[in-house]
C-alpha cells in the first residue's frame, strides 16, 4: 500500500460520521459510503477508511479490499489539474497509448499517481463519447481532441500558472 499519512481534523471525522449515518451505519452500504467520502475528500486516504470501518463496524482490511478492488476509488489525492487519457477502442487504435506514454514521461508519474507538487495527476478512462475526436485527453473539465504525442508538452504548458 502506498498512502500519504495525514491527520484528520475533527470536522473531517464528523463529516465521515455524518455520511456513514446517512446510510444507517450499515456495513452493506460500504461502497456508497466510500463513494460519498471520495466525493467529499477527493480521495480515500487510510485515515478516512479507518473511520469508515469504525463507523460501519467493518474490518479495515475489508474496507481497504473494496477500495483497492474498484479502480474508481483512489488513495492518492488528485492533482490540481487531473489528466485523463481515453483508452477506449477508438482512441486506442488511433494511438492513445503513445499519448499516455508521453504524459508519463513528461510528468515522471504512472497512472494513478500525482506529481510531487500536487499539480497533475494521471488516469485512464474508457470512452467519453467523443470518438470522432480520438484520441481524446481531458484536463480537468477541458477536452483536447486528436492529440498526438508531440502535443503533450504544449498542453501541459497551458497550466503553467
Amino acid at each position, binding site marked *: *500500500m502506498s498512502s500519504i499519512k495525514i491527520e484528520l481534523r475533527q470536522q473531517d471525522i464528523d463529516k465521515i460520521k455524518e455520511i456513514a449515518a446517512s446510510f444507517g451505519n450499515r456495513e452493506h452500504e460500504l461502497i456508497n459510503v466510500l463513494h460519498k467520502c471520495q466525493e467529499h475528500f477527493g480521495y480515500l486516504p487510510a485515515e478516512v*477508511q479507518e473511520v469508515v470501518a469504525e463507523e460501519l463496524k467493518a*474490518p479495515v*482490511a475489508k474496507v481497504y479490499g473494496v477500495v*483497492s478492488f474498484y479502480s474508481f476509488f483512489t488513495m492518492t489525492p488528485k492533482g490540481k489539474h487531473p489528466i485523463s487519457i481515453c483508452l477506449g477502442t477508438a482512441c486506442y487504435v488511433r494511438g492513445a497509448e503513445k499519448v499516455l506514454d508521453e504524459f508519463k514521461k513528461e510528468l515522471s508519474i504512472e497512472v494513478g499517481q500525482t506529481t510531487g507538487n500536487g499539480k497533475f495527476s494521471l488516469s485512464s478512462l474508457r470512452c467519453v463519447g467523443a470518438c470522432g475526436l480520438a484520441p481524446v485527453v481531458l484536463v480537468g473539465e477541458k477536452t483536447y481532441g486528436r492529440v498526438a504525442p508531440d502535443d503533450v508538452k504544449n498542453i501541459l504548458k497551458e497550466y503553467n500558472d
Partner: protein
Amino acid sequence: MSEKISISIDGKEIAAEAGANLLQVARDNGIDIPGLCYHRRITPTGACRLCVVKVEGQRGLLMSCTLQVAEGMVVTAFDRELQESRRHTVDYLLAEHNDHDDGTYHDELRILASEYDLLDPAQRKVPNIFRSIGYRVDDTSPVLTYDASKCIKCFRCIKGCDEIQGKNVLSFSERGIVSHIIAGFDIWSESECDGCGECIQLCPTGAIVEKPHRETIKLDQIEKRVKTTCPYCGVGCQIELLVQDGMIVRANGVEGVSPNDGRLCVKGRFGSDYVANRDRLKSPLIKRNGKFEEASWEEALALIASKFSDIKENHGRNALAGYASAKCTNEDNYIFQKFIRIAFGNNNIDYCTRLCHASTVVAMLRSIGDGAGSNSIEDFALTDCLFVTGNNIIETHPVTATYVKQGRAKGMKIIVCDPKWTPLVKYADIWLQPKLGTDVALLNGMIRQIIKDGNTDTNFISERIKGGMEAFEELKELVEKYTPQIVEHITTVPSDIMIRASRMYAEASTAMIATGMGLSQQVTGTHNVFSLINMMLVAGQIGREHCGINPPRGQNNVQGATDVGCSPVNYPGYIPVGDSDNRRRMAALWNVPYEELDAEPGLSTVEIMHAAHRGEVKGLYIMGENPMVTDPDTNHTREALEKLDFLVVQDIFETETTPYADVILPASSYAEKDGTFVNSDRRVLRVRKAVEMPGEAREDWRIIAEIAARMGYSLGSYSDAGEIFDELAQAVPMMRGISWKRIDHQGIQWPCHDPGHPGTSTLFLGKFNTPDGKAVLNPVDYTEQTEKPTAEYPFMLNSGRILYQYHSSTMSRRNKALNDFANEAYVLMNLVDADRLGLRDGDRVRLSNSRGELETILRESTEVAVGELFMPWHFSEAMVNNLTRAELDPYSRIAPFKLSACMVEKV
C-alpha cells in the same frame, strides 16, 4: 438430533444426518474427494472447484462442499470426467503458482499435483506465468510471512480469522490475477493481527508460514509429533509439538478435540522457545559465601534434607512451609503436598491461587459448593447472554474468547463490567465502567433492579435456594437501599445503563458469568463474588445448560493444583484438613500413621511470608513460583525471604526469587515430562514428554521424593507419572472415574465418579454441591475501600495482564516472537490527568507510595477513567508489587492487587 438419512456415493451406501455437508460426509466415510478451500472448521466457500461431483437428477458438475445431503441422493465422486476436470483445475492453479517447495510446510496443492501427475511442468497444459505477475511478499509481521505467489485465494485464512478467531483482520485486495490477501491496509505489522497463527494452520499451500524456526525446520526431518497441553493460561489448549534435532520447532493446534479444536493464541503457537533457552538451570546450585556454585545432586539433596530436618527438630514442624506451583503437573503437585503433609508434618502449603481466585473459590464454595467453573468452554458460544466482570478475556483467555466472539456473531448479548476498557468492549452491548472497588454497590443495585422488574425466578428461589423465599426476603431488604441514584453516585455508572444491564442479564433465556481478577483481587474480593452469585441466584441463571458462573483460570494448572490438595485448608478433592475420616483414608492410601497427619489448617501464601518475616517460618521450599514478583508488597517479601534460615527454590530458570535461595534445583518444563493438567472447565488433560531435559535437570516429583527419602520418609514408589495419577485419582473423589488410560485421546471433565462416567460438562444441573444440595444467598453490603486516594497519593493504580506476556514472564519473555509484540512496561493514564500534570505520552515517570516506587513509561489513554491508572505487572524492571499492599481479604486471604493509591511524577 437430526434425522438420519441414506445416500450413495460411488455405489457405497452411507448413513448421514440430513443437511450435513456432502464433502464432509464423503471424507468421513473414507471417500477422499479433493478440495483446497474447504475446511471442516469454516463455512464452505466453493472457490477451488476441486470437490466437484455429479448428483443424479442434477445437471453438470456440482461442488460437493456447497451441497447438503438429502435422502436418496446418488452421488458420483470419482469418474473419468470428474478426474479430468480436477486435473485441469490443478493445472490452472499451478499456472499462477510458485511451486518451489522448501520442505517446511504441508502443501496440499503439491500433493494433488503429484496425484494428478502434474509435478513435472512438462506434463502441464498451461504455461507457468507466476514470475511475470510480480507477486508481493509481506514479511512485516513478527510471526509470519505471506507470499502471494504461493496463494491460491482459497479464503481459508480470511474465514479462519473471522469465523474461528473472531478477529476479522484479513481480507482481499485488488482484483484479477494480482489479487491477494491483506491484513489491515496491506501491511501485516500495522494491522490488528495479534499473531495467533490460525491462518498459518489453515493455509493449504504454505502461502502463510510462520517465521520462528523457518530456517531450520524440515518436515522430513521431524523426529516426533507430540500431543500435549499448552503451558500458558487455563484454557488448556491441546497442542501438537513438532520435534527436530531434539528441539521444539513448531506448535500446531490439535483439531477435533476439546477445548480448542485446533485454535491457539500467540503464546500457545509461538511461546515454547523458552524450553530450549540457554539460561535454563542445568545443575543444582548451592550458595557458598554469597555465591552460587554448581553442586552434585547428591550433595544438594543431602544438604536440603539435613537443613529441613534440623529446622523441624529445633523449631518444630510449623517452622517449615512450601509453595507449590500452578505451572507444574498434578503429579508434581500431588507429590509436593504429600511431601509437606508427611515430611514437614503440617499443612503449610499454598501457591499462587491464593493471589488470584482464592476469594472467588471461597465465595463459590460457600454459595454453591464448588469453586470451579460450572460450564464448558464451548458454552461461551452457546449461551444467550454473557456477563463478563473484571476479566479481560480476549487477552487473558484468548481461545475461550474465540467462542465468545462466535456466540456474538450468532446474536449473543454481551455485558462487560470493568473499570478499564478491554478489547471485549468492542463486541459488547453494554459496558459498565464502575469506579475501582465499587463492585458490591453496582451488583446490589442490579439485584434490586431485577427484583423491582419482577425478573426474579421464584420457582428457582423456592426450590433450589436454602431458606427459599425467606432467605430471598432478607437479601431483598438489604439491597433496597441500593437505588439507581445511590449506585450511580457510588460507582459513577449511569443509572439507565445499570438498569439496562440488569434487564439484559435477568431476562435472557440463558446467561453465563465470567469473573476474573478484577473482582477477586480486592480486600472485599469474597464479598464481590458473593454479591455476583446473589445476582445470579435470584435471576435463576444457574442450574441449567448454558447458565452459571465461570472463573477462567489464569495458569495452566491452577485448577489442578488445588484439586490435588495444594491448599492449607483442604486435602485432595477439597476435603477439609480437619475431616478425620478423610485423614484416616489418606493415611491408609499413603501408608503413614494417621496421627502424623496434622489436623490444623496451615498458613496461606501471604501468611507464610508474614510468618517468615516474624521469624516463625524458618525453612521454605518453593517449587516453580516467583514470589518476589507475584506477592504483594515486594519490599516486605524481600525482607521475609532474607530472614529465612533456609530457602530452596526449584525452577527451570533463575528468577527474581532465586538470589535469596540457599539451594537452587534445576527442574523440568512442561515439554520434558509426562503428567496431567486440569483446565478451567475441569478437564483433566494429558501432558506428554516431547524433549529431553537440559543438563542434569530432573522431573519435579522425582526431586521431591528424593528429598523426602533423605529426610527418612517414603512418598511411595512410582515408576512413572501415570502411576501417580492413578493414585491421586483415588485420593480426589471427583476424579475417581478418571484413569491415565481414559484420558489418552481426550480429556475428561470432573466430577467423574466411576470408570463408566463420561464426565460432567455442566455443574449443578440437579443440585448444588453444598451439604443439603441447595445454594446459599450471602447478602453483603458495600463498604468503602480502606485504600483511598489522598492529596499525597491521588491516583488509584489497577494492574493486570496483556496478551503477549504471561505472569512473572519467566517463560514468556524468553520467546522472541512474543517480545517482538510487547516487551516494555507502561502505565496508562487518562488524557485529562496527563494534561493536568503536564505529562506527555512516552514520558518516563515515577510511581510511588509509602510502600515503594517504580519507574516506567507513561501512555496517555482513554482506556482508564480519570484518577485511575493501569499497569501490566509482567515486567520485573517496573514491579507493580512494589506499590501493592499485603492487607488481606478476611475470608480468602487474597491481596488487593487491583487497588493501590500512589502518586505520579516525571523523572
